[in-house]
């Protein structure tokens, strides 16, 4: 089912949580709403669900205007950040809840409910826990039960609020992959909220970047990484070195081999892996001092100090594969020449 949001605005008192947001999500996508704390992503998710009401704008699900419909009639599945499992019910009863509260004429028989619940619990690989209470489960298990519960009512849209936020790092990694595969199998239009750009890149088929109640950019993960629409997105997604032409960086940048535009108001964003280093120092090369380096697994991160015309130092981060770094044969304190392959220019 497709989702169409038009001109959604929402204020909390004088704080504008969402500012005229419009968004279209085609059927079957797995979308990440990505942004820093307080950017309005959770509010947007809750408005799609019907848990909150927008001050203005319309929510359209599958061509139907659902703005004024109560959350219980929207046919959505919502997975809460802290799962919101019913503490007084067993895992089985939690998953069965959505089926049991249906009006009599639509309610499946107890036998059908039981079959369906066990199928779902099998799907999340936790059928063996069906008679436990939520307090007896681990975080990752609760997360999967919450998902099974939301799926039981066969929602048209699955909405997940920070689905991995409350989990340990190791569990989180596993569940990300698992969610991606599950989405692939079920193909239900899904939106999840996250503040973790790595998570968004890893799981989502589309990313919507939000900041201060506005959509900054949307597109596939590679679109967003390779072609950030503005300085915010570029800074928020991945690591970036920032060079400001006004701060007399232009001469240094030219020496590094980068074509520099004429307007001095521009700012260059350079990814760490777009920086090359060499020990050969020539007249007129951009130079920096190697301060320190760290092992990040396959990559080495290098901290460089660039001397400013006024005598102070700025730190530049570069990244390169392990092998390449070894061949360089540099030590802390060495002066190296810097080449920049590529940059994104913003105002």
């Amino acid at each position: 089912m497709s989702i169409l949001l038009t001109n959604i605005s929402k204020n909390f008192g004088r704080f504008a949580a969402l500012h005229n947001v419009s968004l279209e999500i085609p059927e079957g996508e797995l979308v990440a709403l990505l942004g820093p704390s307080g950017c309005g992503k959770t509010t947007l998710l809750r408005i799609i669900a019907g848990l909150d009401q927008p001050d203005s704008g319309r929510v359209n699900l599958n061509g139907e205007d659902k703005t004024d419909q109560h959350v219980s009639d929207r046919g959505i599945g919502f997975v809460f950040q802290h799962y919101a499992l019913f503490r007084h019910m067993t895992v089985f009863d939690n998953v069965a809840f959505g089926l049991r509260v249906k009006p009599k004429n639509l309610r499946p028989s107890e036998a059908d409910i039981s079959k369906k619940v066990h199928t779902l619990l099998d799907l999340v690989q936790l059928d063996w826990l069906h008679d436990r209470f939520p307090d007896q489960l681990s975080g990752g298990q609760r997360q999967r039960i919450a998902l099974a519960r939301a799926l039981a009512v066969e929602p048209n849209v699955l909405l997940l609020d920070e689905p991995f936020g409350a989990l340990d790092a190791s569990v989180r990694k596993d569940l990300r992959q698992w969610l991606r595969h599950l989405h692939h199998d079920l193909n239900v239009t899904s939106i999840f909220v996250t503040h973790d750009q790595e998570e968004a890149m890893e799981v989502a088929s589309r990313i919507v970047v939000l900041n201060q109640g506005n959509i900054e950019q949307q597109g596939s993960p590679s679109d967003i990484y390779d072609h950030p629409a503005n300085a915010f997105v570029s800074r928020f997604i991945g690591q970036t070195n920032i060079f400001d032409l006004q701060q007399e960086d232009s001469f240094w940048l030219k020496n590094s081999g980068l074509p520099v535009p004429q307007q001095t108001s521009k700012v260059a964003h350079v990814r760490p892996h777009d920086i090359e280093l060499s020990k050969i120092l020539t007249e007129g090369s951009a130079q920096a001092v190697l301060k320190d380096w760290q092992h990040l697994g396959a990559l080495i991160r290098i901290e460089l100090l660039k001397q400013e015309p006024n005598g102070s130092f700025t730190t530049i981060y570069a990244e390169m594969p392990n092998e390449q770094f070894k061949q360089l044969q540099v030590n802390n304190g060495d002066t190296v020449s810097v080449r920049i392959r590529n940059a994104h220019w913003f105002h």
Partner: protein
Amino acid sequence: MRQSNIMPGFRPALGYTLLYLGLVVLIPLSTLVFKSFQLSWDDYVKVITHARVVAAFRVSFSTALGAAVIASFFGFIIAWVLVRYPFPGKKFIDALIDLPFALPTAVAGIVLATIYQPSGFVGKLVLELTGVQIAYKPLGIVVALIFISIPFVVRTVEPVLQEFDATMEEAASSLGATRLQVFVQVIFPNIFPALLTGFALAFARGVGEYGSVIFIAGNLPYVSEILPLMIITRLEQYDIPGATAIALTMLIISFLLLLTINLLQMWVRKRSGQL
């Protein structure tokens, strides 16, 4: 023994606590048990099966039960309203709930008697409208005990409602439950143990209550005479063994009831996975 290594004052604090507890509470209470041994079993049975005493048991326990049930119902509504809905004067109302804790029972007693007597402000109204007399009847005892019980229920239910995870309700809603289904199937089962505690506290207090009841009860033998009054009457007749026998029986029944309610509560909690 993790903390006791470096924290000072264990011996004096515990020693003083035990000594004071013994002197003020345990030794005096034990007299009740020892005194009742002076009574033969037959005499004991005779005292507590006396028709007037049996009637007093019935009056005390039934009025306390009735009042605790009514107070639980209204107390739940009050707690719900105080936690869930904004309305003007809420802070004031919230503070007022504790009035029965703070108001001396004798004051409550004479005021309630004045209001609910047949010529009183409310008593007259009710008598004229429905023909029911409140004061000087068991109903009057129930009214006084409701007054006493209300804060017990409100103050046990309120914090639990406050801390109730509202996303559980949102989850139920998102799964298609109606508001009534959310209340019956999600909210109430989670609040019920606390309501039961409030009920038990109210009930236990009601059985032993004296000051607020005697003025409104009318103290008619066999009809509206409560157990604590029976004890006092026996004392005034210098029938100390009789007073002791009634008091001990009353204590034992109260403890058994509280024990039952505690077990019931444990069972409810266990069934709902809250242990």
